[in-house]
């Protein structure tokens, strides 16, 4: 269900007049045997943008990146980079460079020869190569490791070498395939800011692949959420969080409760839903629903308020401390709702409580949307 209006033909659609998109994919399909990795994908990446392809494993995000890099030939569709059709170009001719998941540094070469590898084979002179390598290693803040072998570096340093090696080629677009996946939590946080800084300083278009929604939120100008080989939503991080287009996106981005109900009233896109024992709730929708439809409603745990008092048999099942807040598991009839509350306002398991939901972030989805979201285990990964 692609709700985002995408360019409908294979040819690049006009962005700003007279300007080419950094990357444009037109109706790209890639199959491996019987398995369709990406289906009829349309994507436009603007110049200088930090775009993240986000989704659980197997959603097609890495395949999309590899198609852009030239490592996979699509079965159908066109790839344009900087206004040029590169569909038939091999990887080594495309004006893009990649930071690989496990860095893929050349183990038999020193760090500076790793970074200078591309320049040397492009016929750039020795002095020019040395100058650019040095400059890039300063930008990456690893100026003194040039003579070492990659294996002698820490994970974070190897990451910087991989970035330097790709960026020294002055690519039009930098492709990053889960580059922080191998780092520990703290280093990952640090590198997120580093990547942001580097992106700002070099001004190159970044296309970043990750399954980590937090990472995507922190760094991206725009996030493309993917699932089962198609785009679920293509929007800014805030919009994705506040106005998810599908139940999948709502569930994948941040924590959410998906509860079931029946539409009772619709006014100007504002839908009122009867949630049974949980009462009525108002929310926004982009789906075509009418009164009486069964729908699913996404409620963020932070938007649930818990109060004393018996009402509709809502009972606290469990209450655990999660860092700065308390997560309470509350059941009401057949529905289970997770609420995040401040430390002072917790209730003992077994307490009867009343739930209040008061937010403009409530989203309503038609019930016939694919239920995939709840079954994607990767949705839990942070």
């Amino acid at each position: 269900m692609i709700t985002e209006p995408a360019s409908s033909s294979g040819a690049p659609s006009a962005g700003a007049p007279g300007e080419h998109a950094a990357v444009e994919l037109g109706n790209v399909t890639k199959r491996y045997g019987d398995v369709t990795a990406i289906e009829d994908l349309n994507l436009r990446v603007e110049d200088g943008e930090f775009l993240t392809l986000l989704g659980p494993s197997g959603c097609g995000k890495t395949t999309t990146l590899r198609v852009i890099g030239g490592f996979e030939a699509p079965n159908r569709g066109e790839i344009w980079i900087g206004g040029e059709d590169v569909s038939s170009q091999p990887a080594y001719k495309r004006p893009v460079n990649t930071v690989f998941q496990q860095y893929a540094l050349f183990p038999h070469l020193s760090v500076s020869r790793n970074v200078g590898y591309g320049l040397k084979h492009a016929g750039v002179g020795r002095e020019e190569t040395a100058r650019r390598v040095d400059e890039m290693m300063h930008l990456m803040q690893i100026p003194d490791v040039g003579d070492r072998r990659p294996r002698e570096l820490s994970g974070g340093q190897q990451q910087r070498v991989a970035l330097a090696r790709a960026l020294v080629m002055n690519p039009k677009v930098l492709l990053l395939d889960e580059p922080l996946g191998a780092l520990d939590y703290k280093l990952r946080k640090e590198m997120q800011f580093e990547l942001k800084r580097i992106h700002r300083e070099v001004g190159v278009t970044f296309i970043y692949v990750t399954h980590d929604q937090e990472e995507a939120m922190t760094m991206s100008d725009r996030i493309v959420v993917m699932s089962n080989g198609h785009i679920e939503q293509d929007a800014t991080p805030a919009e994705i969080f506040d106005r998810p287009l599908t139940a999948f996106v709502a569930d994948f981005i941040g924590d959410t409760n998906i509860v079931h109900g029946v539409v009772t009233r619709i006014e100007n896109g504002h839908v009122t839903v009867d949630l049974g024992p949980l009462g009525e709730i108002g929310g926004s929708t982009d789906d075509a629903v009418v009164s009486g439809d069964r729908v699913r409603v996404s409620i963020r745990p932070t938007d649930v308020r818990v109060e004393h008092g018996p009402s509709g048999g809502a009972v606290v099942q469990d209450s655990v401390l999660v860092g700065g807040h308390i997560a309470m598991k509350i059941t009401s009839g057949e529905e289970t709702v997770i609420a995040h509350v401040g430390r002072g306002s917790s209730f003992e398991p077994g307490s009867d409580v009343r739930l209040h939901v008061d937010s403009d972030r409530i989203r309503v989805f038609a019930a016939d949307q694919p239920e995939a979201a709840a079954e994607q285990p990767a949705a839990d990964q942070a």
Partner: protein
Amino acid sequence: MSDAAAQVGLPPVTPEVEHEEGKGRGRAFLGIPVIGWMFLFFAIPYTLLFLQSLWKPTAFGVAHDWNLDNYKLVFFGDELSGNIYLPTLLRSLKVGALVTTFSTLLAFPIAYLLAFKIRNSRTRLMLYVLVIVPLWASYLLRAYAWKVILGQNGLLSSVLDQVGLQNTFLSNLLYSQTAVVITMTHIFTPFMILTIYAVLERLPPSLIEASKDLGVGRAKTFMTLVLPLSLPGVIAGATFTMGLSTGDFVAPQLVGGPHDVMIANQVYSQFGATNNWPLGAAIAFVLLGCVAVLIAVSTQAERREQL
């Protein structure tokens, strides 16, 4: 230290460390069978053989008369028969080098094909088995097979006759150094394939992709990346092949001519026919020295590659 750990609620670490050390001590005696085996069947026989090489042959046995005459004979020969052993040793090294070169050249493309080009795992398994199958047949059998192929009325000459190429140099290859090299190349190529394949298989495909990503084409990527990174496998296979083929005595005996005798045949005849054990032992130790030097050099080279 464990007290401090207990105070801050951490599990005590020291007992576990001791446990680990205890395990290490306990494992030491597991080495005894290996060391015992090596001592009994390696160190003792080699020592005896070395002592033998320092003694003097007599008409019916050995005189325990310490001298270096056997080694002098190996390197410089004597007035009676001239210098025969050193040229044989050099010829053996030459044959070994030829076999190593040819089997490397044959094995590399096959290993490369297996590791990178064949995507279908069943096809790869089949090819892999085809490489290994010759190893199931005895060496002698395979050497005899070459007699059948290379002989005067053999398979090769019959085929050549059929296509009208009678009496070319290919028609009678048997009993020549060429036949020896062909046979041994056939024998050792599978080992070479396996060692090179083992290295190529572990080469992450992302390295090759990274090279292409950096604008380097296929041929250059092979030269600057795949080849240097596969060198440890090539060196290991070459050492193995060089060592074994230099010291081979079956192929020269079966498919070689009278002038293609190799150094191991000399050892064989000193022990088996001439009954001059001290000289045989001396030749064997010179050969052993050559192989030891070879292994030392290749280990050094391999270590440099890995740094």
